[in-house]
């Protein structure tokens, strides 16, 4: 919104994005099944990190609720998977998570700082136990089977959700509402005093971000094929989304994407190569990033540029 007009950089970015999406869309034609499954799970993490950053990045409200919305999607697929076509199931999962987030947001987005964080952690536990209680009391089982879909379908739907998410996040970010969200993060009282409807705006964007988490959960459930409340409402999902977004950096639009891709790939690589030391190495990488790059990976670019400039000055004629 601040830098309007089409710059060369923007065109380059759009072209790069287009080529990237085309390459990804045709992945199933030339890549191995293993690669497709790996990229599916990377895309899932990108969706979680990006949709988390869409709300929490500008507003500074740290939500640990992604697991609740993701799990909502998983259960939608488990309950409706037999009765409805897959596309419908995904849409309803998104809508269900939207409604849940709308309700939760309206009730709790008045809470500030650590109180909001604590509530969102509690929400995941609450829903998990509620579902568990329902299953044990009324259906008499703990878990459910989900109709599996084939790998390529799962992959393409995941990619479609991601593209829809990127488009939505980009449009919000560059609109007047993106600016208003940022002003809420900067100084909520001042934002209200220049006419920003702070609570409705926070609630709606929070709910919109939940759509994509729910949709991702629904399609992921068809790969797992068996789920129970502990799998569906796993708090680790929330932590991963937040960690990946912060690891990548919240200062730039592409930060959470970068963070999720690198972290998810790193995790997979470490698990397969160093099954015994993977958690140790993973932890070290995270700690090093937070200590040396508080702005996340995107903070690396200006540092590199400075370093390159210094090297160039130090070697005359080079």
């Amino acid at each position, binding site marked *: *919104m*601040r830098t309007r007009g089409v710059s060369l950089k923007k065109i380059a970015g759009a072209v790069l994005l287009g080529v990237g999406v085309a390459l990804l869309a045709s992945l199933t034609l030339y890549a191995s099944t293993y690669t497709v499954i790996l990229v599916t799970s990377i895309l899932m993490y990108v969706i979680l990190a990006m949709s988390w950053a869409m709300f929490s990045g500008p507003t500074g409200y740290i939500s640990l609720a992604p697991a609740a919305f993701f799990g909502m999607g998983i259960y939608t697929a488990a309950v409706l998977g037999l009765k409805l076509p897959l596309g419908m199931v995904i849409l309803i999962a998104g809508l269900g998570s939207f409604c849940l987030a709308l309700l939760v947001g309206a009730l709790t987005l008045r809470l500030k700082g650590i109180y909001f964080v604590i509530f969102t952690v509690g929400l995941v536990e609450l829903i998990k136990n509620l579902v568990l209680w329902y299953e044990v009391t009324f259906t008499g089982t703990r878990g459910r089977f989900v109709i599996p879909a084939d790998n390529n379908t799962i992959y393409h739907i995941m990619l479609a959700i991601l593209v829809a998410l990127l488009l939505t996040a980009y449009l919000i970010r560059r609109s*007047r509402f993106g*600016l*208003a969200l*940022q*002003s809420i993060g*900067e*100084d909520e*009282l*001042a*934002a*209200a*005093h*220049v*006419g*920003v*409807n*702070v609570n409705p705006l926070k609630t709606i964007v929070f709910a919109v971000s939940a759509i994509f988490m729910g949709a991702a959960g629904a399609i992921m459930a068809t790969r797992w094929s068996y789920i129970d409340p502990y799998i569906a409402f796993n708090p680790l999902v929330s932590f991963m989304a937040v960690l990946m977004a912060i690891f990548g950096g919240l200062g730039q639009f592409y930060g959470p994407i970068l963070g999720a891709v690198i972290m998810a790939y790193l995790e997979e690589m470490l698990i397969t190569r160093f099954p015994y030391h993977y958690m140790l190495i993973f932890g070290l990488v995270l700690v090093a990033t937070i200590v040396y790059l508080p702005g996340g990976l995107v903070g690396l670019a200006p540092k590199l540029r400075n370093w390159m400039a210094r090297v160039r000055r130090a070697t005359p004629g080079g």
Partner: protein
Amino acid sequence: MQLLEGSGVTRHFGGLAAVSDVDFALGRGEVVGLIGPNGAGKTTLFNLISGVLVPESGTIRLQGESIGGLKPQAICRRGLARTFQSVRVFPHLPADANIQLAALFGRPGWISVGEAERETAELLEFVGLTGVRAVPAKDLKLPVQKRLEVARALATKPQLLLLDELMAGLNPTEVAEAMELVTRIRGRGVTLFLIEHVMKAIMGVCDRIIVLHHGKKIAEGTPQEIATSRTVIDVYLGE
């Protein structure tokens, strides 16, 4: 009909009557000062008017309609804007985005981004900040941040502007500039209600002054009347 009218406005903090049974009225185009010793309840009164706090009793009317209990954003869109005692600009947003946001959200109707940009440019010019439009607000000096906050408030097209200690922390030259700014804001047809400690400034720009002490209104009148009032002198000098 007065532009802003309050009657019997009261608010306690615990057992302390921060604002107690205060009546006030501002006519269109007036510049009214609000003075009083520290802790007299001046900022609390502003917070009650702008919607940060809800009055326990009494009514506040803006253009004849009651605004007690409305949210700040609703009051803003009805034509009342304010600045804060300790400046509250959006620190990481550039100066122009601070103003543009207010232009986009602070009015009853919908305005296009293009129109908001034009008005932002005009207001940057008006407060003399065109040269620093792209600088993040936190990197501006205090007097400049104060001007930015005023411009941001004006971008909501207010009928009435509350200025909470615009001149505090400014040197004499900057105070003179701020007084000149107040006069020019008045020239735009905006009614002003200002809290000030700088007596020279308040005596120079106000048509009328209201004096608060321990949450109560103890005097009201022209600068001349206030400067010579026995009660006011007693309160300030503690005789």
